[in-house]
């Protein structure tokens, strides 16, 4: 197990290097001059552009820039000299002229928002999706199953921006149950109630779409597992249907859910762009979207590397979890 982990971590790190280099090539390939972008849209003063080019290191060859970037990740970076010195401490992803901030700081501000959104939604849709899926499979062909089918149909058809807007229109505007989203984010530990007020509708919006997919997946997985030979063996032993479902069916049926949930969660951590936009949440999705619109290359590079890291880490977590669930994986590892 230790060997397996060490090998996996080594592979993960090398993948990260490859991803970061590939993303960094954006600077070289895109038909933009990153130095010209730093001085704003209507700036034509070549002396400022040239000065910024040197300050930000864009005058170096691309491979040197990458090495400087890597060095910055571990040691931090200092841009410029004298009174105009900007220091971005390690881990530094560079400096964004659009945000006028070290990229790391922008990301650290946005990350808790996205984390709150993703974790809350994950918990909600797992409870909803797994619960409804099991119910539908258990009472296959009856009212509960039909009800869940309707839910799945609506959930998979409604895009999140529509669900989100509908929730806003009814819950916030018409019924005035919750305050209007302010565009600010209140951290959980500062004011839990305010945090909950801000997050509850985005959670429901995201969870609705995912729960529908999970309901369908769990229903099919449970029904498929119930037809396995080992379930027939369990029945032949004289076990009750309750024990057969809880002990013998669910563990086998829900194992693949680990992979699905892990990867969906990782995807969300990269930024739930639509949901964040609808609810005006200052998360990673909105940060990346803004960066793409403004050609804010340092932020694009940073968010892409972050998203890749999250996917790789979640893959590793899923594989480790899987080994705990399925003994056959343990031996193969």
């Amino acid at each position, binding site marked *: 197990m230790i060997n397996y982990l060490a090998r996996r971590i080594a592979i993960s790190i090398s993948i990260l290097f490859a991803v970061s280099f590939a993303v960094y090539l954006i600077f070289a390939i895109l038909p933009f001059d990153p130095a010209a972008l730093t001085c704003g849209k209507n700036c034509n003063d070549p002396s400022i552009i040239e000065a910024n080019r040197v300050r930000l290191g864009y005058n170096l060859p691309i491979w040197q820039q990458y090495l400087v970037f890597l060095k910055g990740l571990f040691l931090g970076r200092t841009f410029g000299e004298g009174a105009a010195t900007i220091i971005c401490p390690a881990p530094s992803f560079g400096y964004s002229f659009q945000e006028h901030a070290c990229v790391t700081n922008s990301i650290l501000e946005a990350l808790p928002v996205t984390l709150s959104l993703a974790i809350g939604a994950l918990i909600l849709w797992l409870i909803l999706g797994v619960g409804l899926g099991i119910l539908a499979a258990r009472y296959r062909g009856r009212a509960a199953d039909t009800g869940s089918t309707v839910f799945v149909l609506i959930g998979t058809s409604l895009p999140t921006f529509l669900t989100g807007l509908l929730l806003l229109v009814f819950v916030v505007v018409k019924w005035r149950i919750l305050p209007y989203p302010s565009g600010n984010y209140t951290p959980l530990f500062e004011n839990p109630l305010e945090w909950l007020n801000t997050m509850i509708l985005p959670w429901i919006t995201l969870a609705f779409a995912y729960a529908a997919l999970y309901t369908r997946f769990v229903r099919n997985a449970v029904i498929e597992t119930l037809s396995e030979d*080992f379930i*027939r063996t369990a029945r*032949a032993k004289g076990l009750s249907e309750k024990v057969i479902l809880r002990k013998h069916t669910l563990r086998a049926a829900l194992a693949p859910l680990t992979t699905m949930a892990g990867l969906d969660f990782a995807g969300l951590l990269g930024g739930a762009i639509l949901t964040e936009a609808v609810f005006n949440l200052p998360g990673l999705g909105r940060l990346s979207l803004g960066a793409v619109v403004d050609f804010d290359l340092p932020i694009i590079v940073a968010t892409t590397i972050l998203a890749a890291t999250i996917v790789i880490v979640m893959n590793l977590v899923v594989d480790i979890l899987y080994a705990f669930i399925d*003994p*056959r994986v343990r*031996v193969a590892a």
Partner: protein
Amino acid sequence: MSFLEVNNLRVEFPTSDGIVKAVDGVSFSVERGETLAIVGESGSGKTVTNLALMGLLSPRASRISGSAVMHQSSGDVELINLPSEQARKIRGKNMAMIFQDPMSSLHPYYTIGDQIIEAHQIHNKVGVEVSKARAIELLEMVGIPQAAERLKAYPHQFSGGMRQRVMIAMALVNSPELLIADEPTTALDVTVQAQILKLLRELQSELKMAIILITHDLGVVAGAADRVNVMYAGKIVESAPVRELYANPLMPYTHGLLSSVPRMDRAHGTRLSAIAGQPPSLIALPAGCAFAPRCTFSSRVTGGPSRCASAMPELVEHVPNHFARCHLEGATL
């Protein structure tokens, strides 16, 4: 009075295409310490007959009628349409079943110890330690070395033959009086087949249980059974002690089955014969003998093929203790 008396058992599955008569008025009996083989091709009703006895058919998908009385040492019990709670108490305790594919019949996520102990715990109010000792005893009985350590192993760590031994140990953990073995050797290597059949024979003489052996393999029947029921299209078409059946098949179908088995004592170069045609659909069974369309002997029947096609022959005792369902009288095939 035999140990198990099955009388006029019928199992029907209503489907959208019509009613499938999977088992059509089957009667037989099994003695304590006797092995009854039920032989037939896929769809002949041999497995469904036994699933009905075990109470493993879904009551929502099937209609079962007839009677099957098991005269146990603890009293008589009617197995057909037994309320599910009572059926559950008998399953795995008084009657047990082993299945065709030992690869998929054991739960992949639990150790074999867990699975055998579970089978003992359901039917006995004893501590886990007692069940564990019983599991070790059973594993030793079925010939698994280092039983105590092997309890902690998972099914995928065993070979096919060893897994079938585990299945047998699990089935016998509550000392059932009736064991139903559904194609127990079909998925195994020929050498392992012989070992498993020998093991079943030994355990039977030791535990004095009745065995119903379901198979399509006449080679298995020859060495392992006392009596044979041949099934075709949901009916028993011939029933005789094993030696008698091989020496003197009275029903053309049995004859066809026997001549399709390769034999060492046949002249070199003789072609194996196959039974032409397909078994009939169980939805629209012919009025007469279900085998008549494939039968090559019907012209020798008094009354000719038209009699075979219009009148279903009864299961008649042609020779003492040798029953056949055929209009041919006393003819040697």
